[in-house]
């Protein structure tokens, strides 16, 4: 564990902007391995302007909390959480949640793979305060339970709307109150015919 702490101070010195790209990447990789296990790998891409983006698929849902703690140790800031149903989610019975962190200008994404049914993730609010709304939002839009969230009320979704609208991959017109577009267009086209 002491290795990890050394890494933290090292990354603070080098940083992605500090010029030592390899050193920075090695630090992040080592911290994640330390926290989430040997198989944890980060794939880094650098764009034409030198901005680093790292992608890491966590080996298990259980490694999310330690990995998030490691990122916090590295002075990472939680930037965004994206829940989604990947391609062929039904076939594979899987869903994913991506946690995007800012590391002084570089973006690191940690992705957890969860079962499609009965998905549960631990809340990160104890580590990143601003995860509160991110998690409240993902709980109302998707069928995912966030374990340990301090305030799991709905956030944006009106109470009259069904739970988890983002789970429905059917065309939206069949689950909205009316296919408004069609009704309106019928009138537009009819209005026209009335004209002399």
């Amino acid at each position, binding site marked *: 564990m002491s290795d990890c702490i050394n890494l933290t101070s090292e990354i603070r010195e080098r940083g992605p902007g500090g010029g030592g790209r390899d050193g920075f990447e090695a630090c992040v990789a080592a911290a994640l391995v330390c926290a989430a296990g040997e198989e944890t790998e980060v794939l880094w891409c650098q764009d034409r*302007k030198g901005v680093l983006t790292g992608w890491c698929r966590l080996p298990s849902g259980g490694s999310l909390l330690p990995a998030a703690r490691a990122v916090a140790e590295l002075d990472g800031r939680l930037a965004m959480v994206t829940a989604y149903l990947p391609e062929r989610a039904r076939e594979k019975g899987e869903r994913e949640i991506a946690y995007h962190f800012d590391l002084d200008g570089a973006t690191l994404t940690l992705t957890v793979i969860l079962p499609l049914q009965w998905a549960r993730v631990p809340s990160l609010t104890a580590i990143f305060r601003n995860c509160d709304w991110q998690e409240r939002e993902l709980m109302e839009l998707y069928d995912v339970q966030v374990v340990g969230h301090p305030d799991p009320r709905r956030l944006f979704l009106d109470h009259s709307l069904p739970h988890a609208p983002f789970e429905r991959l059917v065309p939206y017109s069949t689950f909205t109150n009316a296919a408004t577009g069609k009704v309106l267009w019928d009138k537009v086209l009819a209005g026209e015919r009335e004209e002399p």
Partner: protein
Amino acid sequence: MSTKLIELGPHQLALEEPMYFRVKLEGDRVADLDVLPGQVHRGMEHLVMRRNFYQNITLLERLCSLCSNSHPSTFCAAVEEVAGITIPERAEYLRAVADEIKRIASHLFCCAVQANVIGETALFRRVMEVREIMQRAKEAIYGNRMDLAANVIGGVRYDLSVEGAAYLARQMEAMKQPLDELYLQYSNNPALLVRMAGVGVLPRAAAREYAVVGPVARGCGIDYDVRKKSPYGAYDRLEFEVAVQEGGDVRARNLVRLAEARQSVSLIEQCLAQLPAGPLCADTLPEIPAGEAIAKSEAPRGELMYYLRTDGSDMPVRLKWRVPSYMNWDALKVMLKGEPVANIPLIVNSIDPCIACTDR
């Protein structure tokens, strides 16, 4: 001390958009608050999965009219990243011009509204009149005063002719003196100082804990600007200093905004001076392969982040974005704590609250 709960809405808070707060008062001071968003929730992240990439350019521009250019340009950057498109240099500059024009108008609107909230009507009208120079410029160049329709996948769909560039340069010249004057006013005018200095303070440590970005963070001494930290488009060739203030109060946030508006004038001038010749767009109807990408930009309110996931079809599998306003609401708890009720509208407006952005 008596504790009571009050509900405040857009009419009490002088907001252009509907947002509600449940405020816990101890005596006449704020003890805690609960933010109740959702009035402007239009299900946009769901709509974008049912529309193709082209339609999403126009749809995203209507997420919020105050930062309307940041959304399509950052979305297009994500699409371009997935498709491996390098946009022409001229387009990079023209995107920066559009973003900076919007930044000036957005910052001025925020400062104007705050003047109105504290009853400085003459100053409110003055700032709005200065902002009109930008509104007129937007309409002259882009055809609309709010939604510029500047972006397409692979570049831009507007150009600046020699005369157009000269016209914009003249408008920028006309902005300098009023912006300098406004900066001095918001910095030193005693009537403003009384209401804004030391009010709604967010300490730097709290700013980090609450993960705020943009002028709210920079007003607390946090030197973070996406244009510098993660340069994109033309920004790696443009010179500017990140505007930072130490106060963490309402005044500091406004000074950051006004300093940035002034810098935007300089950024636009640099763009006009460096504007390279060449095409506006890489490829008019590109194929978008399967992939994922992140794109970021510095919107008027701070870091804007987009995540795009595609499967080779012409609609996104997932398009998620996090607006800079998102974290500010929670930080209001710190800024409002211990403040008298009369300061609530000003402090709420000092975070440049964007509800359309927040609710999506």
